[in-house]
């Protein structure tokens, strides 16, 4: 599963996408744990970062499927 990164997360990881092996549905909170295990440098951003699935924000309980489009959204600053 490819996960899109933006703004501060993209700078921290040095990439606009990261890849996490996922082959079955899992909750968003579980996916977060996989991300942080693979990229511990993102841990400081966790508290203020929201996950989106197919361009909508998720809760910890949202079920994620391997082919979903996932993005990590740091605090926004538009307007």
């Amino acid at each position, binding site marked *: 599963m490819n996960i899109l990164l933006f703004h501060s997360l993209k700078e921290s990881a040095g990439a606009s996408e990261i890849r996490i092996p996922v082959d079955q549905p899992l909750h968003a909170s579980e996916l977060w744990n996989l991300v942080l295990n693979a990229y511990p440098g993102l841990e400081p951003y966790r508290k203020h970062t929201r996950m989106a699935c197919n361009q909508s924000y998720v809760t910890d309980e949202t079920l994620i499927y391997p082919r979903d489009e996932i993005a990590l*959204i740091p605090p926004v*600053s*538009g*307007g």
Partner: protein
Amino acid sequence: MNMKLDILLTHQPIVLKDWLETPGPQEGAQVFFSGHVRDLENSKTIQALVYQAYEPMAEKELERLAREICLQHPVTQAQITHRLGTIAVTEAAVAIRVVAAHRSEALEFVRIFMDRLKQDVPIWKTGSLP
């Protein structure tokens, strides 16, 4: 109530003089707001700000917010544009025009929409030009 909704993300300048139109016969209020780049950012003088977005989600969030706010503050038209890329000082980064039967709905819609945009829509100021 059906709302005529027009949402745009663009890399082109927002031309303010093109925005105001005469409302329809049952529309008693039109409210326009534009947000502009100032020459001070984090206490430093700048020439421009650079905006980026997760564009497909930003468009969906702008629409979601507009439809959600319209349930509480019904407006008949909402036109929303956010510019991306490099935006010079004094230029508009965002513009919103709403039309409603009465001014209270239109004013509240714009106030709440701008607050929510700054919380939820995945658009970022990614840098500034000194």
